[in-house]
């Protein structure tokens, strides 16, 4: 009888241990596969390029062809909220030009044209770094994010755990139809991105190279855009002088003729 009890106890103990081990494995697997909040991640990642609700910054774009500096352009960007951006062109070749973005609508002001000109979505893609790359940096407002996977990115000596998000355009004002976006797992800092057109064509890639503490905010300082159609061409965007500034709504009025 005691042998029977002993056997039963052993079997019960075995099942108990097996049950606990199974629970631990299942819990661990569940923890490992629980997806992060993609929307929160995207909103947080946007703060590295949009430090304040209303601010002014300068962007210098240097275009490189076959590794050699080819062109340099300078812009002053004034941004308010997620849907009002005003870009002033400061290089001599483009001096007097302005781009205004209001929600899904964009205008360009050319000093030698008789009126503000509406920009079609296709025109947003013109240039090595497109108008949209400079004027539309609030991805959370323009795209719907979905968590895809977690992966390590970077050189072997300095890999970073990143979440990969797939962003799909949710409004017609978005510059690209789809973006694959790598953000650092620990702080949602953007690491790299791939940009796709409606046709599915992979048009550009980006690496978010340097960050700097600016007026108490950690902000993007250097971004490199690689042309995926002409592989020997890339553009470096350097951000500087970002300051919060109360910008009046009327700065973003499309009929305002005295730009600047």
């Amino acid at each position, binding site marked *: 009888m005691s042998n029977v009890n002993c056997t039963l106890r052993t079997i019960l103990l075995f099942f108990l241990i097996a049950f606990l081990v199974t629970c631990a494995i299942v819990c661990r697997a569940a923890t490992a596969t629980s997806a992060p909040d993609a929307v929160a991640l995207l909103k947080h990642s946007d703060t590295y390029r949009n430090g304040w609700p209303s601010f*002014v910054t300068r962007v210098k774009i240097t275009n490189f*062809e076959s590794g050699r500096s*080819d*062109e*340099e352009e300078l812009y002053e960007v004034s941004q308010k909220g997620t849907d009002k951006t005003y870009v002033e062109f400061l*290089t*001599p*070749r483009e*001096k*007097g030009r302005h781009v205004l973005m*209001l929600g*899904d*609508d964009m*205008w360009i002001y*050319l*000093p*030698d*044209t*008789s*009126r*503000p*000109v*509406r*920009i*079609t*979505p*296709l*025109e947003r893609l*013109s*240039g*090595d770094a497109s108008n949209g790359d400079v004027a539309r940096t609030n991805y959370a407002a323009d795209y719907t994010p979905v968590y895809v996977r977690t992966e390590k990115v970077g050189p072997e000596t300095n890999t970073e755990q990143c979440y990969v998000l797939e962003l799909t355009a949710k409004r017609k004002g978005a510059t690209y139809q789809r973006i694959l976006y790598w953000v650092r797992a620990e702080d949602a800092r953007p690491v790299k991105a791939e940009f796709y057109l*409606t046709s599915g064509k992979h048009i550009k890639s980006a690496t978010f190279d340097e960050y700097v503490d600016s007026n108490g905010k950690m902000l993007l300082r250097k971004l490199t855009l690689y042309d995926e159609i*002409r592989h020997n*061409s890339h553009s470096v965007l350097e951000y500087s*002088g970002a*300051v*919060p*500034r*109360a*910008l*009046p*709504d*009327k*700065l973003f*009025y*499309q*009929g*305002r*003729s*005295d730009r*600047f």
Partner: protein
Amino acid sequence: MNPAHVIALCVVAAGLAQCAAAQDPPAQEGSAYETRYSIAVINDATFYANTAPHVPAVLNQMLVEPTFDLHYRQRWSFSTSLIGGTTTYTDNTTQLHVRETYTGLSVGDFDFTAGRKLVRWGTGYAFTAAGVLDPPRNPTDPTDRLNLNEGRDMIKTDYVRGPHAFTLAWSTAELARSGTNLHDTTAFRYNVLVYGFDTALIAGNDRGSDTFGGFTFTRVLGQAWEVHGESMWREQEALLLGAKYVMHSGVTFIGEFYTPPNTPYYRDAGVSPFAGRQHYGFLYAGKSRLRQLPGWKEWDVSGSIVTNFDDHSYTGVFDVNRWFGTHFSAYAHVQVPAGGRGSEFGAAPYASANSFGVRFQL
């Protein structure tokens, strides 16, 4: 409207705006003063082919165009843009023109402007029916390539609230160049962006002349289309409809149809007063940065044609521009008019006008 009433309204609005501004939160700024400046130096030589015997075949213009803008705390502004030029044609002349010089005060939702200013209310590219204060459009040179257009002398008040903008302007013709067909103009404009339509209603009066009213719109459709239009009633109706199409390659097409009445205000100098309502067409094709490749992206190329459908005359225009570095560019601009001797474009006293120039931009 009596000009005195307009000025009184502006003063009252300024008082109201001061009260509103007192409640505005203080703006955080990097610097109290901001400035912008630019200088363009252009030498443009135009060679006329097959001119009449007594007409010189070469026109040379040397232009210096400085601009300066000063802003103080996003509240007060001063802007000036001048044109100094030496023209060599039948004789040598040197002139200084004021393109724009105005001061502005921004208070709350109000903006007040006084001085000579370029205002662009029309949405047309080559023509305008509703640009009552705009510089005149020249369909063979819609971009005003030498920047010779001058503003109107005016007092203007803008009130901008959300998507709504109201403008009241009074412009005097007292200081305008002699020979222009300008009147003292009082004009009101309401502009709103609704469902993607950038729409404006315009009404006003030319002193001793017409009362007018009309509207303008622009709208982007899909990925590649923009449509625009203007309609204005001034004795009779003037209508403009246009569209822009952008290809994936960046080539841009603009087409416009314009029909003005044959009234003194709208009539072009080359059109007979008895010719009746006129109908014009405009077609443009162009590409800036010819290709995104070194050696190509310095080039801008465009061609256009403007035609009068009634007398079957037209002018073809071809432009090419090349940049050399950041500050220098060279260009060619060719105009070829065609049509009967008595037609609008065919009456040009030359077979072609070929302009070549160099430009320095700082």
